[in-house]
């Protein structure tokens, strides 16, 4: 059928990452052998990345509905109602493998991809967040990756004029061969003007617009569904280069197209390019598409149908216009200097038919390509090493002696240290909505034309997920929500990016299944639906998997923007309160890793009830205006949280004098343990009694632990039942310097 008749050999099938059974299924669907173009199209659409073949049966368990949900999973992005006729459209995507191969372009095109997912829905993107995982900064290769990825995110996001308002970076050598680059984007759309990727209306024109098609990233989707090995170098020529300027034009053109009454459906060309956008749009509408490649704008001569259908050139879109509106669509695209061409028509026969120079080169039922891919309920079981990880004899670990030194080491540890030198490279203020810039628990942007603001955070403690995938995932949800609540926002929706190893391994699948269960239980408890997401498997190199990293991006709503809260102390003389109970929770802590070089133990136990009660309480007191700052306790525990309250304000640093009872705890557990459901508040002195009483009434453990002020950071730990007390006493400036410049110092090594 195709111009070059290439026999489909066993080798060719294997090179396309298709199993024998999958190939048989293809032959069954077609009723014949596929040609090479068709084989390529099936291989990308049935890749793990596009078909979710190993994850789908489990993803179904996640709660995706709720009164605010306007669009759940299945479209380019999810959407939740925020009132005023508006909705927040958001999603998170991974670009892990490309970023390892070429950090700048990999990260840049990752940003480009997620932005397109948002604006194809008719939403103007207003915020980006980046969640990153790298190996330790003592390796030159990791420093190179960090610099490249950060520059790539900056290069693309800044040029687009979408602020990068927050993110997360964790350093752990497990990510040395598999860094993670997850990018979250949120946009705002009118609730009744959301656009979907559907090819409705037989006879409607299918229009290609954006950049020209080149030979980039052919087989990107199958690469993202493949483990790395030493041969990966050979896949290098498939690197895609981002062109943020063209994407900016694409964004403005799309929004202009959508403002008119022109479109039926629209979808970006992400992974699997022209193939995925056409077959998915057709399948959603139960239609077919007749596609003619002859007029597809191309960058290079001599491209084959195979290449055109599989190219992952960036900054391209496919729209289905209302019949008769082609000219207006073309005019708008040309106004924005974009390439544009009518490349097909919607048909009623359900077939994606591809022609080139008059010849049919592929003919596949659209639904089979898009939705009838294989599904696997892969076997799962806990790994043999799991008990070894969780069993930790704490008696063998000496309690902390020099608490000053321990605190400084933690503040300096890159995972905890300030990320300022990173986010200063991101334009985090463009669009003039950023109320809380990077550096507090969550980023907050106001919504112009309303009183409202949106808070956003990305979170995941992957060490907890390694030690106990179910608990780890529940904690990730709880922590994300806690970060929002501490910013004054009510959590309203969630997106995820599930980064795991090879799903064909039962131990990895076990991690995945348990993490899903944990997310499900926590989301149901907090009544926060998951409206979009992404799965990235095969984050494994030479058999070594990353820690399970179900990254979460959570969105919260602040009804009245003046109720926005930040984490840092505001005023000398204010009282410091601790809410929540501190327990013997050293397992999986950053303290154990940094001071004892152990990543072991059981992660803290989370009570969903206690956590929810805390959220409700914090929101109440913030909304009543009696709180001056709120900060959740996470990595590094209570003393790190307190130190951050003192040193993280953009302008002024403040000291604090704190006194803590030890009771029956170890000193290190009290100071650095990571018990969940705890928040540090600062309040005017005269409000202390009121708040403590209200906390008691709500059943939330609460006590006054100190006072803001001075230029030293002091924690007095009183003698306990079984241990001596101890004291942290350091100049605030020293805390600040260790914390603020640690990453910069580490990166400046060459």
């Amino acid at each position: 059928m195709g111009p070059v008749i290439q026999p489909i050999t066993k080798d060719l099938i294997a090179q396309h990452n298709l199993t024998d059974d999958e190939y048989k299924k293809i032959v069954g669907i077609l009723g014949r052998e596929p040609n090479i173009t068709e084989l390529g199209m099936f291989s990308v659409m049935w890749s793990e990345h596009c078909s979710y073949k190993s994850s789908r049966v489990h993803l179904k368990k996640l709660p995706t509905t709720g009164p605010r949900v306007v669009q759940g999973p299945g479209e380019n992005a999810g959407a939740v109602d925020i009132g005023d006729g508006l909705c927040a459209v958001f999603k998170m995507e991974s670009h892990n493998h490309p970023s390892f191969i070429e950090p700048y372009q990999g990260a840049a095109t990752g940003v480009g991809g997620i932005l397109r997912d948002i604006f194809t829905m008719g939403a103007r993107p207003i915020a980006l967040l980046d969640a990153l995982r790298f190996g330790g900064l003592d390796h030159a290769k990791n420093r190179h990756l960090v610099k490249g990825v950060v520059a790539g995110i900056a290069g693309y996001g800044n040029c687009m004029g979408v602020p990068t308002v927050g993110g997360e970076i964790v350093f752990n050598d497990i990510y040395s061969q598999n860094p993670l680059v997850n990018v979250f984007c949120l946009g705002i759309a009118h609730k009744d003007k959301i656009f979907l990727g559907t090819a409705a209306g037989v006879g409607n024109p299918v229009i290609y617009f954006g950049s020209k098609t080149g030979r980039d990233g052919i087989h990107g989707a199958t690469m993202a569904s493949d483990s790395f090995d030493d041969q990966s170098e050979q896949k290098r020529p498939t690197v895609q280069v981002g062109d943020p300027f063209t994407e900016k034009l694409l964004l403005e053109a799309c929004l202009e197209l959508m403002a008119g009454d022109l479109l039926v459906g629209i979808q970006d060309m992400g992974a699997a390019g022209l193939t995925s956008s056409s077959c998915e749009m057709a399948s959603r509408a139960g239609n077919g598409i007749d596609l003619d490649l002859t007029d597809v704008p191309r960058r290079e001569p001599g491209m084959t149908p195979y290449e055109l259908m599989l190219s992952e050139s960036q900054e391209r879109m496919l729209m289905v216009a209302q019949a008769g509106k082609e000219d207006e669509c073309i005019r708008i695209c040309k106004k924005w200097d974009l390439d544009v061409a009518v490349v097909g028509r919607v048909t009623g026969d359900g077939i994606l038919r591809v022609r080139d120079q008059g010849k049919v080169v592929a003919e596949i039922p659209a639904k089979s390509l898009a939705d009838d891919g294989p599904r696997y309920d892969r076997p799962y079981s806990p790994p043999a090493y799991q008990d070894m990880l969780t069993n930790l004899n704490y008696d063998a670990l000496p309690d902390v002696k020099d608490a000053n030194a321990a605190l400084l080491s933690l503040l300096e540890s890159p995972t905890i240290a300030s990320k300022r030198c990173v986010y200063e490279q991101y334009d985090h203020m463009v669009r003039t909505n950023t109320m809380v810039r990077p550096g507090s628990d969550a980023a907050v942007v106001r919504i112009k034309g309303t009183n409202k603001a949106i808070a956003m955070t990305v979170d995941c403690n992957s060490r907890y997920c390694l030690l106990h995938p179910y608990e780890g995932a529940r904690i990730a949800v709880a922590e994300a929500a806690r970060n929002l609540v501490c910013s004054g926002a009510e959590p309203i929706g969630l997106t995820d990016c599930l980064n795991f190893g090879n799903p064909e391994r039962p131990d990895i699948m076990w991690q995945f299944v348990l993490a899903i269960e944990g997310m499900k239980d926590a989301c149901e408890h907090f009544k926060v639906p998951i409206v979009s997401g992404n799965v990235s498997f095969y984050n494994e190199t030479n058999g070594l998997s990353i820690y399970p990293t179900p990254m979460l991006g959570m969105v919260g709503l602040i009804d009245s923007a003046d109720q926005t809260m930040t984490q840092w102390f505001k005023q000398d003389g204010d009282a410091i309160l601790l809410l929540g109970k501190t327990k013997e929770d050293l397992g999986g802590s950053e303290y154990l890793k940094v001071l004892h070089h152990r990543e072991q133990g059981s992660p803290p136990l989370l009570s969903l009830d206690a956590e929810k009660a805390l959220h409700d309480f914090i929101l109440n007191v913030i909304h009543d205006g009696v709180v001056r700052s709120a900060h959740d306790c996470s990595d590094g525990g209570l003393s790190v949280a307190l130190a951050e309250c003192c040193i993280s304000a953009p302008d002024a640093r403040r000291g604090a004098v704190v006194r803590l009872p030890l009771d029956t705890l170890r000193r290190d557990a009290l100071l650095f343990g990571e018990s969940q459901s705890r928040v540090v508040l600062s309040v005017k002195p005269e409000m202390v009694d009121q708040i403590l009483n209200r906390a008691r009434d709500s059943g939330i453990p609460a006590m006054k632990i100190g006072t803001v002020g001075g230029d030293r950071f002091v924690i007095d730990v009183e003698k306990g039942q079984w241990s001596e007390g101890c004291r942290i006493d350091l100049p605030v400036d020293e805390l600040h310097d260790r914390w603020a410049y640690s990453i910069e110092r580490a990166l400046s090594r060459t």
Partner: protein
Amino acid sequence: MKAKIHVTLKQGILDPQGKAIEHALDSLGFKNAGNVRVGKYMEVDVDEKDKVKAEAEVKAMCEKLLANTIVEEYRYELQ
């Protein structure tokens, strides 16, 4: 010795800079101009008399730092 190094994008790799400049030249009325490619040019003094050794050094510099060999290729002259 002085090394003159040219780093350019590999064939087939998108060159957004070149594209933008081409477009600008066109709208400035330079209708004869086309196919613009943009690269980097570097001059490095190499304090090494032996040409063979100097060449090896320059090559190593390019591979390690000056060119991103995943998307770029390089060439150099020594004088």
